[in-house]
């Protein structure tokens, strides 16, 4: 057990080193550079000397190797640096964006997990029947919806046609709302992004739950449970669902990691000020430090989520404990 734990820790370390190094390389491998961002839109009007000075000021003229070591030093000391675009500390920028992202991705994760697991369990229980096939077809259909299209459809119906909900942003700009009215404003703005994300996430949970259930349903101990006269609901929830939940937890853990990345597309469609949009802006303008910092956050989130899944697995499934 201990030997195994160490090996797994090694594995995480290797992945961390490789991923964090890639985070440095990725922005630099992309065509283009942050010159326009640093020098402003009229960079074409600058003299070559002025341009060189701009590059020198941020240290991009240094050899790549020394930039790489500086980068690692910053990563290890927890220094996320400053944005080329705004000059602001990136930690502060991420701190502003992350709550918005977690609000919509977190809420949709919880809601989609709830419905996905229940519907998935129901569907598997009714396997091969009409209700199962209808659900299965419907879910596969949902899963293939393009997310931007669904987002725009919801905006079109609920914001433009019906006028019930705001179509963009996290709060009403310049509204001076406080207290409960402010909370209500935030909630109203979050409804459509959360709904979009939820609808798109349910099929994944559903399919994982359903297949996992079907696997368990074929196992001997279910037949035993039936034979000893356990009620159907006890078999479903006490035996099958409990045993089928482990892969779903892994799936949700990975989803949770993705939640930190936000959804570039959903946050763009709804002009939502989350982390996904920060990354979108950073990538399109080649704001290297922000790209690196955001990728680092994703890397750490994915690793932690996996670690969490690894730790939860033996708790959920006693058979995993003694391997």
């Amino acid at each position, binding site marked *: 057990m201990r030997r195994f734990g160490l090996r797994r820790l090694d594995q995480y370390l290797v992945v961390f080193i490789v991923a964090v190094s*890639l985070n440095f390389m990725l922005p630099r491998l992309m065509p283009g550079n942050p010159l326009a961002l640093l020098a402003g839109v009229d960079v074409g009007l*600058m003299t070559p000397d002025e341009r060189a000075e701009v590059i020198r000021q941020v240290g991009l003229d240094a050899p790549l190797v020394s930039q790489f070591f500086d980068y690692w030093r910053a990563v290890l000391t927890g220094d996320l640096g400053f944005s080329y675009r705004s000059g602001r500390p990136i930690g502060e920028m991420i701190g502003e964006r992350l709550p918005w992202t977690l609000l919509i991705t977190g809420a949709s994760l919880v809601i989609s997990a709830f419905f996905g697991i229940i519907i998935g369990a129901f569907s598997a229980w009714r396997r091969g029947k009409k209700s199962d096939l209808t659900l299965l077809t419907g879910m596969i259909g949902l899963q293939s919806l393009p997310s931007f299209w669904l987002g725009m459809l919801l905006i079109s119906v609920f914001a433009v046609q019906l006028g019930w909900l705001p179509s963009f942003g996290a709060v009403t700009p310049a509204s001076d709302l406080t207290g409960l009215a402010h909370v209500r404003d935030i909630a109203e703005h979050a409804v459509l992004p959360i709904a979009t994300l939820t609808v798109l996430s349910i099929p994944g949970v559903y399919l994982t739950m359903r297949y996992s259930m079907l696997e368990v349903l074929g196992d001997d101990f279910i037949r035993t449970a039936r034979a000893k006269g356990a009620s159907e609901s006890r078999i479903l929830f006490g035996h099958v669902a409990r045993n089928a939940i482990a892969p779903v937890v892994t799936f949700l853990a990975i989803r949770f990691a993705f939640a930190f990345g936000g959804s*570039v597309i959903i946050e763009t*469609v709804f002009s939502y000020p989350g982390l996904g949009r920060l990354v979108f802006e950073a990538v399109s303008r080649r704001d290297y430090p922000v790209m690196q910092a955001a990728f680092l956050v994703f890397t750490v989130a994915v690793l932690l989520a996996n670690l969490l899944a690894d730790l939860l697995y033996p708790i959920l499934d006693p058979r995993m404990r003694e391997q």
Partner: protein
Amino acid sequence: MLRRWNLPILLVSLALIAGACGDSDPEASTTTAAGGTTAPTVAGATDAPTTTAPPSADPVTVRAAITGGEDTLNPYTYISGFPGWNLLMMQYDSLMQLDSAGIPQPWLAESVTSNADLTEFTLTIVQGATWHDGQPLTVNDVKFTFDYFIDNATGRFSRDLRGVESVTVSGNDVVVGLAAPNPAFDLVALADIPILPQHVWEGIATPGDQTFDISTNVGSGPYMLTDYQEDQSYRLKANPDYFRGAPAVDELVVIVFADDAGALAAIRSGEVDVIFERVSPEQIDLLDAQDPLDISQGPEFTTQMINFDVSKRPFDDLAVRKAIDLAVDRQDIVDTVFLGAATIGSPGWVHPDKPVYNPAVAGVHDTAAAIAMLEGAGYLDSDGDGIREFDGQPMSFEMLTNSSDSLRLRISELISEMLAEVGIEVTVASVETATWEQAVWPDFDIANGRNYEMAAWGWSAPVQANTIRIAELVHSDGGIGFLNLTGFGHPDVDTISAALLTEADSATSTSLIMDLQVLIAEQVPFVLLAYPDGAYVYNSEVYADWEFIAGQGIVSKVSLLPPGARP
């Protein structure tokens, strides 16, 4: 099972996240260049509204949508040439201000005079203008601004002031001495540069290293920035003490959208009142049909063109460039892509609404003539595959375009079809904006060469607005022709375009521009396809008094001032 899958899942997850990030397209905002506008009694804006919202005691708030943030909106932080510069100038004033015809009129400088050879400009600064913090605006602020931009490089304003040799103060006058005559100085510099308060900026030694918050946004303009939420919104309050009189709109809230679809949905749902970006042609009728939305539309000076690398075979051959020019049906592009909302491109570069336009240079669409020209120059299809050959290779080229501009993509597809008819194969490659820019204009310095064969390209309004800037596009010396992205060079073009830059006499200047248009149309350094119209959508119940500045659109402080305070 979980264990075995762990590593691949991790790596795949990370790759997916990185991949999702790579899909993005920025707004094409960097294809611009410095400013000002020349001349023109331009045929005015078309259906700019004539009605004013009924006067009422209620404060008027206008919520405007933009696409993409503009940072803290000071002269060193704003991002795009349009609408970033336009929003910047809501807070600041220039010495001169464009009127609705696009002609600079006295503004902070109540009079502007120059000597006969246009090397010295005397500016009399208006009395009674104040900064947002209540301090008076003086000649010293003006001199400080000139010195500051010369000492602390910005792409735009420092460029405007290159050639300034001396700035002296005498009483209420600022006298600017130039190294060489600059007939466009009023347009490129005086109507472009925001005047800064000395008492705020003298403490900022190196603006390039500075992290700005909005506390430095002290201007003299009609609006004061009171709140800024990154990538969300700007809140601009009217300056009641504005030297031209209080603005007609009491509060301007600028909302940052991530894409234009979001802005369109928001104006249709009534959540914003105007969009400070051009709406695409197919949206114009749709939006205009919805009450209370209206459209303000007029000709603008942005351009859509084809660039080719003239230094490479076979584009170094005039016959090939001319054949491409002949094969292109400009009318079809205006009709199909712009649904008529554009002016047909002149092969001589100059917009037909400009007084210096030479009507003798009209684009000709003649596929047969294009084929004859290619045949005559020896470009034959020897293997019968429908594609001609040059130097033993097929005339098969890649045309780069930026994926964020769907109109440009459609233009490229049409061009591909048009050139196929004359035996030239064009494959359209739609890439992300930064990639496209890096290929066409590596590091924004033409000394770095070119990494493309053909590209769909365009310049922002200021390049066209000031006609003498034509030299920047076609002169073979990179010091003068620093926007010459096609690597074009021709001795006669060099001579005339360089002469134009310093010609003080306007009749001679006009005649030089006329000649140059003929020469450019003959030599085809690029193919100018169209000048798209500007079309802006606004809610006429909230505010209807938008002023369309010819060639520049409605996004300016002029639109928000009461009629009596406009230039």
